[in-house]
């Protein structure tokens, strides 16, 4: 769910789009039905089941509308390819870094405030900080997942992953396509160098992690940990906690240097014809009862301060000022601007 969409040949896409556009310019706009339709993107899996089963039907009933939820990736290229004046989505749900790409192209709004979405008044500052485009409704924490049956001490630092005992037993991501990998790279800059933006230190530390098993999305990392193919790997807390109660010998550790925030961000497209409904949807998703339901369903930390979680979740999720202080938010605008160079270097480092 955190994989960066593999399209960055936008010029090519635009050319194709231009050709198609030339043929159909001036086509009539769709006539809107009586009931308004809100078009959103949303995740699949357990989250998707809960959305489709409970959250969205309740929203539709309350706001007398129809919600069309697209669960099929890739969201951003589809939005890019659709007309700006009549975008294919009203609300875009992605991880944080994709929102940064979207705002660069004018595909989503730059800022959302409590004026449009009243519940923003109740959320933690990180969820609406300058590192976020739109509103973060939930976050996961990227830390270290590890096997509890391999005689490993619970890691307390990101440096634990570099332990020589873990050679070939540690797991990371194919950085160009995975934002957890990208966040981890920045974290290496902070842990081994001068800060999140210290790429030289990060590359050096990355080279030290070899041999390392690389995957392209988090589901694979979960399975590698469960299967014992890696003993420790970079992963988000919800990817480990979701196996809670299944007797799996895996656990999640919060390194002392902090965890990286993996935010679930909602934003509205400027061309949306149902903008009020779009804001209402974001507001709805920030309601304490909705937040509690989803947070406990998929182990996401809720953004709303007023959510009271059951003890099991309360113990682990980031839902107090003190715990939220451990979240580090990467500067995706900075990262995306350098992505091509970083991809090239990191590919070279990890290849041989």
């Amino acid at each position, binding site marked *: 769910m955190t994989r960066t969409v593999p399209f960055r040949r936008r010029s090519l896409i635009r050319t194709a789009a231009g050709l198609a556009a030339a043929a159909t310019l001036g086509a009539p706009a769709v006539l809107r039905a009586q009931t308004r339709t809100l078009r959103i993107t949303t995740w699949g899996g357990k989250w998707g089941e809960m959305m489709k089963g409970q959250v969205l039907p309740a929203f539709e009933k309350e706001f007398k509308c129809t919600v069309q939820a697209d669960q099929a990736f890739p969201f951003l290229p589809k939005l890019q390819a659709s007309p700006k004046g009549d975008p294919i989505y009203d609300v875009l749900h992605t991880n944080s870094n994709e929102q940064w790409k979207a705002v660069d192209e004018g595909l989503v709004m730059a800022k959302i405030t409590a004026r449009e979405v009243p519940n923003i008044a109740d959320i933690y500052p990180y969820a609406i900080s300058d590192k976020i485009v739109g509103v973060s409704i939930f976050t996961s924490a990227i830390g270290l997942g590890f096997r509890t049956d391999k005689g490993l001490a619970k890691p307390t630092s990101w440096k634990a992953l570099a332990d020589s005992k873990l050679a070939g037993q540690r797991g990371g991501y194919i950085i160009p396509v995975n934002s957890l990998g990208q966040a981890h790279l920045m974290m290496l800059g902070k842990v081994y160098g001068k800060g999140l933006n210290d790429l030289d230190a990060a590359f050096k530390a990355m080279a030290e992690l070899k041999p390392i098993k690389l995957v392209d999305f988090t589901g694979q990392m979960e399975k590698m940990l469960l*299967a014992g193919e890696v003993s420790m790997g970079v992963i988000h807390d919800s990817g480990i906690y979701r196996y809670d109660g299944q007797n799996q010998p895996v656990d999640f550790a919060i390194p002392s240097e902090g965890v990286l925030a993996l935010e679930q961000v909602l934003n509205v497209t400027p061309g949306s014809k149902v903008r009020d409904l779009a804001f209402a949807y974001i507001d709805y998703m920030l309601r304490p009862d909705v937040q509690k339901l989803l947070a406990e369903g998929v182990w996401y930390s809720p953004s709303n301060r007023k959510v009271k979680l059951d003890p099991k979740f309360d113990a682990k999720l980031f839902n107090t000022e003190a715990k939220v202080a451990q979240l580090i938010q990467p500067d995706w605008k900075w990262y995306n601007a350098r992505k091509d160079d970083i991809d090239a270097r990191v590919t070279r480092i990890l290849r041989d």
Partner: protein
Amino acid sequence: MSAARNRTPFDAGRAVYLAVNALLVAFLLAPIAVILVFALNPTPYISFPPVGVTWRWFDKFFSGADFMNALWLSLWIAACVLVLSILIGGASALALARGNLPGRAWLTAFFMSPLMLPAILTGLALFQSYLLAGLGRPVWGLIIGHTLVAVPYVIRTTLAVLHNFDRRIEEAAAVLGAGPIRVFFEVTLPLIRPGVFAGGVFAFIVSFDQFPVSLFLVQPNGETLPVVLFNYMKFDLDGAIAAASTVSILMALSVVLILEKLIGLKAYVKL
């Protein structure tokens, strides 16, 4: 003398030949075997050796409404694509081979071009066209997309048959009293049918397995099986994927076998 003749000497050439063949078969079947092991293994990840046998992933697949809807949609679309590709591809091939069209080589290249173009671009271009035309993402739009990439297969296989077609056979029918339309239905069509249907089988499989074109064109709650599997994999990478793959393989295989039984893909003309 005869005893010596009966003793088969060790034939190194034949042994190597058999070994290479066995390796090739293993190479081709290994992925299917891995999928099957994964599908029947109780753990939610691939583990070897398997720790047991379970039907729970198949159960999960067959009881999942999303999976089932997607499976039927994919089959339905593939069936439409099969019919459309046969009609369009067969007619195009006939026109290309027989039509005395100017610039025939160019036209052939043009009709084959969806094969050269990355399918993802075909999907994207159609997606944009539909949106700009205000059509949204209708199912028939997806069928058109699949048909676009499937038609060249039918054209290719039909052209191959037409290329070796002895036109004297049609002349023989004409001289025996068959008008042009009867010649077509009595002789031409039956003779090119194996080529057309061989292409049709490709078209079916191309559509049933189609991912890149579908990626953009599926509508919310109307995703085809490959798209559903792709998205499912990102959240729940478990044996249900393998079970779905197994079912897909069996589906595609049985469609091919049924078509083979019904139509007889084994050509009675030289292809």
